[in-house]
């Protein structure tokens, strides 16, 4: 019989472990998480008998940091097994195909004035960074969808691909894309005007991060054009959201990989195209809405990544529940 005021206590680290069970693989859980949690519980147990509350909090913080560092180190330094290497090659191959298909699709809509062959090549080269910023996340999605569960021994190949792609997209949208965009505009102006003239003024898409910040501050100081100020702010957030897209698409791909929806290449392509279209349509809509000063700009720009992350999480939870049920059924 339990006492009326009895409350079952949860051991320290138990909640964190329960969350990590859903995130990390069985090997990482057994080799990294469990030994850390066990030692943490032991040390907290010793300090509970003799030690202040502050000391225990400090101890928790130290172990929390140790857990994060160990997980990162393990993910980065553990050598790939033969199966993981095979999976990585498989995932990258599909990502490259997806990226290529998206590039062809997007490039066919650019309407470049093809005056001479050299000019056409120049136009395509200058357009490539902005097209790649859209095509790479799609490639990640297709690559992650190709990661069949039976084939993939762990999620590391997909996680590695998503993070590497996010770094590339980040460099593209912060450094290369604004400069290439401006050069493209100058070239287009020259082609249309037939001669060299004054360079067109840079818009938000052609500015670097620091230029955007300066322009925003200058507009805020005058206090005249609130919408323009919003546009500078939105552009900055939009680029960060585009970088996050790689990670989000990686999560979506992982959640749906191995399901009937991603069993064949055609299905994966259809699913990927549908998801990417919905995502980019939402992004464009969000960016447009966000430029109005009266709307919540952060929410509008970050709506697609947040919505798709939740979708991925829900799909993953449902899949795990189904797996667990099947496991219980099989005894």
């Amino acid at each position: 019989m339990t006492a009326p005021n009895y409350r079952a206590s949860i051991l320290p680290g138990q909640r964190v472990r329960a969350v990590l069970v859903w995130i990390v693989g069985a090997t990482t859980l057994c080799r990294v998480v469990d030994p850390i949690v066990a030692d943490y519980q032991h040390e907290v147990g010793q300090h509970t008998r003799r030690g202040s509350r502050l000391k225990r909090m400090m101890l928790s913080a130290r172990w929390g940091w140790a857990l994060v560092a160990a997980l990162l180190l393990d993910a980065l330094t553990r050598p790939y097994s033969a199966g993981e290497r095979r999976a990585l090659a498989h995932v990258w191959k599909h990502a490259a195909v997806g990226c290529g298909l998206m590039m062809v699709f997007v490039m066919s809509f650019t309407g470049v004035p093809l005056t001479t062959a050299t000019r056409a090549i120049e136009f395509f080269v200058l357009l490539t960074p902005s097209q790649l910023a859209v095509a790479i996340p799609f490639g990640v999605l297709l690559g992650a969808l190709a990661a069949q569960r039976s084939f993939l021994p762990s999620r590391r190949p997909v996680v590695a691909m998503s993070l590497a792609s996010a770094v590339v997209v980040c460099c593209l949208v912060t450094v290369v894309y604004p400069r290439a965009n401006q050069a493209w505009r100058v070239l287009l102006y020259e082609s249309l005007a037939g001669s060299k003239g004054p360079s067109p003024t840079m818009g938000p898409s052609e500015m670097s991060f620091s230029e955007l910040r300066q322009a925003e501050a200058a507009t805020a100081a005058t206090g005249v054009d609130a919408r323009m100020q919003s546009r500078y702010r939105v552009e900055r957030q939009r680029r960060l959201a585009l970088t996050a897209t790689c990670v989000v698409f990686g999560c979506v791909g992982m959640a749906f990989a191995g399901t009937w929806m991603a069993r064949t290449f055609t299905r994966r392509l259809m699913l990927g195209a549908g998801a990417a279209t919905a995502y980019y349509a939402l992004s464009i809509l969000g960016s447009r809405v966000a430029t109005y000063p009266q709307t919540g700009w952060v929410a509008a720009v970050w709506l697609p990544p947040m919505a798709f992350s939740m979708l991925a999480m829900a799909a993953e939870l449902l899949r795990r529940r189904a797996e667990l049920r099947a496991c219980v059924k099989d005894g």
Partner: protein
Amino acid sequence: MTAPSGVPTLSSKELAILNLLAAGRSMFGLELVAAAKGDLKRGTVYVTLNRMEDKGYVESETETPRPGAAGLPRRLYRPTALGLKVLNAWAAVRAELSWEVSK
């Protein structure tokens, strides 16, 4: 993992761990951190131990749960014969090299 030529490798952290374990007593990760006096950190010791286990330098087992004890069982680490052999070889090479340098 070993170097491409097949020669076993030993990093400074692995050396510190093997030195501590070579004393003969099995130790927990936290005990190793405490005994290393700053050479090993909580965040790196478990990853290093896993790597050493893959290389075959150490082996581990979960402790036998004591009656009435709560929480996850801790993991005990001890050196393997290969680990001790590598440590001795390393110490011999180091002694040899230091003698050569001091000549």
